[in-house]
């Protein structure tokens, strides 16, 4: 196929003034301080008190924002032509060993046009519901990243259309593996893990939800249909 005549590649750095120097490898980065990402001023002006704290650590700007307004802020960063953070690198969470310290949900965003990198954080103090707004409506790439974060930390992304476990299976009962109260070897004993694995019914992996999408449920063997109807879940 010949390229369409309207083809124009998206060139990173296109938003910078002409003649700006090319990006270079950062050298001698200070631990704290250093140049702040210019987006922060715009964020402060636009969202005021929702921007709670700004740190520059190892040359990267971290912005702690009010957790209920994350989606709104990310939407503005994505849509505003003066920012154009069109690339969501990562969504993840951090739990500290200090139990008093709140759990952090972290978004890494890139602005290709301005060659900027910003880290947004929402603090989830212990004892409050682990909930933050989902950025899925803005970035499709958040789909699996948020599901993984839910799977590993139990953080609920409100507004995600299909927040299920991703890496662990649906019937996983041991909790959220990357939480600090989760022991390295798992919550259940090896014997219990083995017992559950042997008791699992491999047929049930073809869960009702998946089979019914193709209207193939009625074609299943009678006994399997009966089991799935009675509410048996995948992998249990």
């Amino acid at each position: 196929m010949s390229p369409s005549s309207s083809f124009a590649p998206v060139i990173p750095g296109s938003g910078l003034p002409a003649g700006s120097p090319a990006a270079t490898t950062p050298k001698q980065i200070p631990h704290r301080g250093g140049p702040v990402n210019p987006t922060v001023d715009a964020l402060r002006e636009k969202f005021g008190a929702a921007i709670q704290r700004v740190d520059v650590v190892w040359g990267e700007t971290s912005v702690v924002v009010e957790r209920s307004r994350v989606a709104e802020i990310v939407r503005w960063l994505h849509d505003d032509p003066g920012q154009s953070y069109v690339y969501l690198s990562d969504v993840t969470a951090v739990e500290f060993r200090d139990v008093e310290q709140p759990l952090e949900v972290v978004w890494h965003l890139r602005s290709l046009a301005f060659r900027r990198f910003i880290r947004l954080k929402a603090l989830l103090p212990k004892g409050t519901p682990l909930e933050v707004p989902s950025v899925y409506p803005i970035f499709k790439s958040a789909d699996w990243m948020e599901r993984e974060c839910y799977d590993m930390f139990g953080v609920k992304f409100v507004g995600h259309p299909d927040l299920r476990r991703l890496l662990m299976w649906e019937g996983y009962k041991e909790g959220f593996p990357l939480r600090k109260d989760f022991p390295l070897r798992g919550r259940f004993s090896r014997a219990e893990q083995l017992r559950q694995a042997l008791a699992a019914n491999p047929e049930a992996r073809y869960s009702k939800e998946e089979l019914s999408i193709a209207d193939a449920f009625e074609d299943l063997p009678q006994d399997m249909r009966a089991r799935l109807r009675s509410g048996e879940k995948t992998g249990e």
Partner: protein
Amino acid sequence: MATIKRTVEVELSTTGLDAQGRPQRVPLAVAEDGSTVAVAAPPSLEPELEGEHMLINIGPQHPATHGVLRLVLELDGETVVRCIPHIGYLHCGFEKIGEYRQYNQIIPWTDREDYLNSIGNNVAFALGAERLFGIEITERCTVLRVIAMELSRIISHLVWLGTTCIDIGAFTPFLWLFQERENVYALLERWIGARLTTTATRVGGMAADLPNGWTEQLQTFITLFPKTLDEVDRVLTRNGIWVGRTVGLGAMTAEEALNYGLSGAMLRASGVAYDVRKDFPYLDYETYDFDVPVGTNGDVYDRFLVRFEELRQSVRILEQALRRLPDGPVNIDDHRVILPPKSKATSEMESMIHHFKQVMEGPRPPIGEAYVAVESPKGEKGYYMVSDGTSKPVRWRIRPPSFVNLSAIPRMVEGHLLSDVIAINASIDIVMGEIDR
């Protein structure tokens, strides 16, 4: 599209992309003036089968899924209506284990995550840890790491191209490419002592300097390698079957590709010239002269072209790196971070203490966090590390490029034929070790 049930009855052809960037598949007829025109869908031969959908389960154990990936496909005739990917069969909790290991002890885990790019992961992790420690590595180490990264890009792309050829039905290029891959592995083995699980870097340096005569061997490789590339180019690039099986499949527009978070060759094939080496450089990549290939249609064929050109660009970078490889120490001169040489550790008191402290406690970075991304063969690979001042990270997060790329597979395969699912899945260049971690 959905009205055509019997795909075998009519000739199917991809005439172009529709407004959403999806290929249009319509039956064609040849008009009197020789041009092709779309014809109306023929009446269904078996009306009772209208609306009947079939469920196909590919994987987890299937050679064409490149690992333990499971795809549940809902088919209308041969056309995929819906695709649900299932992952996690290889999940072993790398990130959790990392929280119980010192920084240097994590490096072997990075080998096993994207195992086709192990030395590249080693370098990426070391760069992240060095940011966290505030270390500047030596000149020679920088160039050695560039050589390591580009060799690893070559290996990964060769495996990708070879296996994709097999998936689509071409066997010969696979053998040629894997022969070259063996040459790279032989080089790595001489340098590091291991082929796949290299564990080549340390925080602040490398595990080993180059052995004598290694640069000459690398020079031989980069002289001969482009000839193999030319042969593969001649066999594949204009091959009718190859083009027919790849053009127009899984097309993503630039805007969509960015929104789905694609990176690496997947993103560049869609026309976004984002390459971490150029835009957020590391290891002085801005001082090397190389081009970033960009595709126009974002389909499987363009991804092939982009990766193929990247192989040639990697050779260019290797040539420049060899030319500028400076002499001097590989490791930094700070034995609080990097182990002292064994002769010193057994003869000098201070070195012995450093050795003991490092082995027993491990080096401690200051409190802080760093997200360091590199251009891995699959895309933007990021390591996000958070330190609370102890010798083990509080959090070690891998941003796996093929995980994010794979999450777009439902969008890419829906509307295509079943046999094209294999080609599209191959074009993502997935490594399940990295996706499931």
